[in-house]
């Protein structure tokens, strides 16, 4: 069953879809335009001048991080795979624990805007910077594509419009918002969108549970919702579960749109506080997709086929409520879904545009805008040319790729004196070739690769391989260790001195 047929088959009211999409798009643009009036300098554009408070920042990180895969994909996977799917939200959340433990504070203290900046500062090498930039751009593009697939699904289900309308709408709104206000306005948009997404699942969930309770309808059907008989996919092996968890835990570390957020914290300690809040916000959020997935196992079992399962969240309210109440709740979840594509895509576009404009457009505001257009067009073309089967799965592959490339660079760069530029480049390229190669091979083989877990979920061996190559080559090229290593490491790990930063304008230091 194709995505657009699902909508036709169940007769969602198109007016509801239009209203929800318009509402989110207009609100996003309004906040973006309001942000434009107060963002003036290049610093504002890139990292909100580092004046964002932990709660704001944490909401913004949550808003940016909770993508189509989380909002639609998790419930869809629970519908078809049962407990195996629960590992996805665990990995998405616990990734922030790893980020907190190994990356958050040191990276903030590094004083770099982007991962390539970090690579250059740490390794004192332009080639290492270039390779890192290239990988960041690839990861960003690959990660936007599933967002656009999600948009295509949502728009065609809720409005009946052709599938290309959704991706195009997302791209237009994101471009307008990003080019308008850059990072500062995006921070407000993102923070707003976390709470929008949470409300968009929590309110329908509460109403659904109330109605089920009042009418005495089954919630878990006496436990029948949990039986593995309802799964339409084969159970995951221990290897593939482990590999998935490794990919998600360590892939989060390297996601460009997540990292750039940490530079908006005033110092390392607040970067840690922010991460802790993010962890709590994500934990609360993921309860709801899980609930939708479980309810879906009783009320939308017909969606349990590849390609349609991601519609579970959108269809469920209409299965339990009829008429206006059903329409209103459907509008709610649709708005949340659209917010999910918008926020993740705009976060990615901001960080990508930051990297692309520094690399190719000399870092000016105009260059940032050009780079923003470029960063959205490529994934748009990719999304229109490809077809998505399961959102959570394709996002999982991007995490595996990030974990095999950018994660070793960050971890070893922050914690190991011995890293050299040659080692970093060799490790990243090895990870990219091994991980990218196996995912591509698995995709090309199609159904034949279904049993080849090591190809479809390569993280468990490609991440250690990348680390190994990075360490071995660094050891072999000991002589290339950057002269400033101990200075940089001291900078990364020692707390900022307390003092003038709280004293206000009088203490105007002549840094820069």
């Amino acid at each position, binding site marked *: 069953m194709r995505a657009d047929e699902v909508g036709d088959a169940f007769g969602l009211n198109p007016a509801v879809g239009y209203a929800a999409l318009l509402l989110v798009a207009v*609100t996003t643009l*309004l*906040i973006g335009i*309001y942000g434009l009036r*107060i963002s*003036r*300098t*290049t610093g504002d554009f*890139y990292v909100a*001048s*580092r*004046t964002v408070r932990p709660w*704001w920042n944490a909401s913004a990180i949550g808003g940016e991080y909770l993508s189509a895969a989380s909002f639609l994909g998790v419930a869809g996977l629970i519908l078809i795979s049962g407990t195996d799917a*629960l590992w996805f939200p*665990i990995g998405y*959340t*616990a990734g922030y*624990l*790893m980020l*907190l433990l190994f990356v958050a504070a040191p990276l903030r203290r590094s*004083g770099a*805007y982007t991962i390539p*900046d970090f690579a250059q500062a740490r390794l004192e090498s332009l080639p290492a*910077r270039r390779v890192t930039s290239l990988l960041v751009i690839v990861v960003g593009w690959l990660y936007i594509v599933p967002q656009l697939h999600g948009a295509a699904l949502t728009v065609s289900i809720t409005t009946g419009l052709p599938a290309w309308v959704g991706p195009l709408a997302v791209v237009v709104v994101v471009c307008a918002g990003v080019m308008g206000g850059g990072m500062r*306005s995006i921070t*407000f948009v993102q923070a*707003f969108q976390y709470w929008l997404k949470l409300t968009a699942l929590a309110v329908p969930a509460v109403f659904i549970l109330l109605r089920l309770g009042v009418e005495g309808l089954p919630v*878990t059907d006496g*436990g029948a919702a*949990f039986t593995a008989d309802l799964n339409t996919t084969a159970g995951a092996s221990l290897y593939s*579960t*482990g590999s998935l968890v490794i990919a998600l835990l360590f892939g989060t570390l390297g996601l460009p749109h997540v990292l750039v957020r940490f*530079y908006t914290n*005033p*110092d390392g*300690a607040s970067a*840690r*506080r922010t*991460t*802790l809040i993010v*962890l709590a916000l994500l*934990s609360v959020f*993921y*309860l709801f997709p*899980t609930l939708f997935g479980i309810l879906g196992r009783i009320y939308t079992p017909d969606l349990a086929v590849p390609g349609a399962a991601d519609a579970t969240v959108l269809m469920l309210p209409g299965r339990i409520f009829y008429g206006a109440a059903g329409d209103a709740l459907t509008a709610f979840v649709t708005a949340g879904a659209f917010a999910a594509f918008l926020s993740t895509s705009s976060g990615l576009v901001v960080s990508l545009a930051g990297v692309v404009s*520094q690399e190719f457009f*000399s*870092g*000016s505001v105009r260059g940032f805008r050009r780079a923003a257009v470029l960063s959205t067009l490529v994934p748009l073309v990719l999304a229109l040319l490809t077809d998505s089967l399961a959102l959570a799965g394709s996002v999982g592959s991007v995490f595996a790729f990030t974990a095999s490339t950018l994660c070793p660079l960050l971890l070893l760069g922050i914690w190991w004196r011995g890293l050299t530029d040659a080692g970093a480049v060799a490790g990243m390229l090895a990870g990219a070739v091994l991980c990218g190669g196996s995912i591509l091979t698995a995709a090309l083989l199609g159904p034949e690769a279904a049993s080849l877990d090591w190809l479809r979920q390569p993280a468990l061996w490609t991440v250690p391989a990348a680390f190994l190559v990075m360490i071995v080559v660094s050891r072999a090229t000991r002589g290339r260790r950057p002269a400033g290593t101990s200075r940089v*490491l*001291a900078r990364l790990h*020692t*707390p*900022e*001195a*307390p003092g*003038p*930063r709280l004293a206000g*304008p009088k203490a105007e230091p002549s*840094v820069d």
Partner: protein
Amino acid sequence: MTTPEPLRPPPAPDSGRPDSGPPARVRVTAPRTSARPSTGTYPVTREMAEHSAVGEVFVGSLIRSQLRLALVVAGGFLIILIGIPVLLGLFPSIREVTVFTVPVPWLLLGLGVYPLSIACAALYVRSASRNEKRFQDLIDEG
């Protein structure tokens, strides 16, 4: 629906512009390869203290203790996480136990892991700050 009210930030000490009047447009033409330093200052005396032989030892021991802390917390979390499927594999009868019709595996994976990760994170934040405070005291004494 309330839209978030963006607060006009106090002029950041590193913004490099006067705090009166509307902010001026800035055009940056040079490639920007490094950001401004974080808002905390980094006094010369402190820098010298850190790069003396003793300072290097202090920094080295700070990095080691932070790494050890991070590895211990990550290791503990991962062992519990991996422990869940291993335990369920070893004792399949656990799968049959239910609480309010919800089987234990669903409870553990759908609910239980989240408080665990938050607890690990809170523990780490406290200990990491303590390590930094100890380092700060050492440097300030020295």
